[in-house]
């Protein structure tokens, strides 16, 4: 079976005035289709950098990354991806419906299919009352929901979420959690980075822990966290215990 995400010895280094910063160091990771994968790590661990490489926002210094067997450098690889960024925002001068239609057009969907999916997503995200209002008038939660709808317009096989619950109230978090669970039930792959370990514990099948650009642990949630420990303690122990190993080169 072709992995949804296949990362092989991926390294990313930034050149700055103070020298090279290694954001990722030979990261190797494989995500099978149909699972919810939690990508964890402290701030600056390299989670967002990994996601940016997967989406082609920045190039890797070395190594390869593939989405469903296609190199991430090829725009075609993004046909099967939905993405929600860390601080999602949308064109405030468009209405919610216009934004979703635009996203559908960028994926090359037929107009009738776009119309159908836009209506379904507007209903699913509970934005029927505001679909024809400009996004400028939306609240933060509504913006998050319209951006999520935009990420789902192509009915993606792989959904990449960069800290999707950051800044959301408990109700918003619950909505995101429910959405991820329903996507998993439909056989979709969800790859998401998060600091909310309690949520990760609830919904993830596998996790990976990253620190200083290096992979510290990876595996099914049930087997890598020792019995009697919760994820939070395991995460803290793993990151602090192996800081020396993960120190930047």
């Amino acid at each position, binding site marked *: 079976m072709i992995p949804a995400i296949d990362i092989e010895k991926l390294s990313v280094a930034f050149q700055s005035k103070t020298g090279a910063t290694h954001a990722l160091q030979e990261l190797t990771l494989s995500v099978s289709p149909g699972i919810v994968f939690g990508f964890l790590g402290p701030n600056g661990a390299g989670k*967002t950098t990994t996601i940016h490489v997967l989406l082609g*926002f920045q190039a890797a210094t070395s190594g390869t990354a593939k989405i469903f067997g296609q190199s991430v450098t090829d725009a075609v690889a*993004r046909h099967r991806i939905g*993405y929600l*960024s860390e601080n999602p925002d949308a064109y405030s*001068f468009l209405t919610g419906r216009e934004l979703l239609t635009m996203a559908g057009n*960028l994926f*090359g969907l037929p107009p009738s299919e776009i119309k159908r999916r836009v209506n379904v997503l507007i209903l699913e995200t509970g934005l029927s009352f505001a679909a024809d209002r400009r996004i400028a008038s939306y609240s933060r939660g509504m913006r998050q929901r319209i951006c999520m709808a935009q990420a789902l317009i192509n009915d993606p096989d792989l959904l*990449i979420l960069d800290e999707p619950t950051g800044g959301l109230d408990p109700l918003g978090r619950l909505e995101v959690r429910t959405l991820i669970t329903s996507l998993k039930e439909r056989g979709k792959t969800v790859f998401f980075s998060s600091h909310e370990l309690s949520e990760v514990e609830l919904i993830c099948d596998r996790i990976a822990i990253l620190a200083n650009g290096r992979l510290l642990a990876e595996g099914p949630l049930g087997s890598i966290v020792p019995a009697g420990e919760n994820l939070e303690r395991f995460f803290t122990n793993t990151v602090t215990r192996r800081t020396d190993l993960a120190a930047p080169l």
Partner: protein
Amino acid sequence: MRQIITVAHVVWLEMIRRKDFYILFILLSALLIWLMIFDVFGLTTVSGYIKDLGLLAVWIMGWILALNTSIRQLPQEEQRGTLFPLLAKPISRLNIILGKWLGSWSITCLALLCFYITLWLGITIKEGRFDYATLCQGFLLHCAALAIVCAMGLALSTRMNRDAAATTAYVLTGTAFLMLPKIPSMLIHTQGVAGALLLGLYYLFPHFELFDIRHRLVHDWGCAPWLTVCEILLYAVLMTSVFLILAWLSYRNRRFTRENLT
């Protein structure tokens, strides 16, 4: 092509829903009304000065609109956080550049058409007239000049922030428009390195003066030869392509991280 038109469509909607065009349109209308009501030069029956000042205003406003619209496109995507969702779609960076250019240029041309119609109305009310064929030629050449301006603005904004790109673009286009026609006469008295430098600038910068046939319209000199107009249009296609290729070369491998998004 559909992706290019989709990106352009967003530019159109933004322009229609922003105030820039409406403000410039009101300014042009106010200028024309002022010229018509207050007999500034004591020439009550002559519409030539209205043509002259009106066309100058239309050129300046078209310039401002083209540069402001094209320059803000890419930096604005970064500032408002819409760049990542856009790049995450299966769209190449070339298509983003082409869509942004097409959107900026076409909406500026539409605004320009409104400006020309307003000017034509003003002149007609003042019992003056334009030679329609020359007016069409003037509009066509003006649109072609703005295609280069939009491509140039876009190319500069791929690496500079909005303010820096705007300043550079205004200086470059202004210099090109005002100084390039004077270079041949300056070359007579300049030799050596300075002469070669001037000659280099003469061929490097776009010649916007080629597209300006305001004198023909003001003094009713009639149409320019259509073959010459076609050659100038070809020149516009060439220059626009050069700037768009430069924009793409600069943008295609640009690395986007959270740090360089302001």
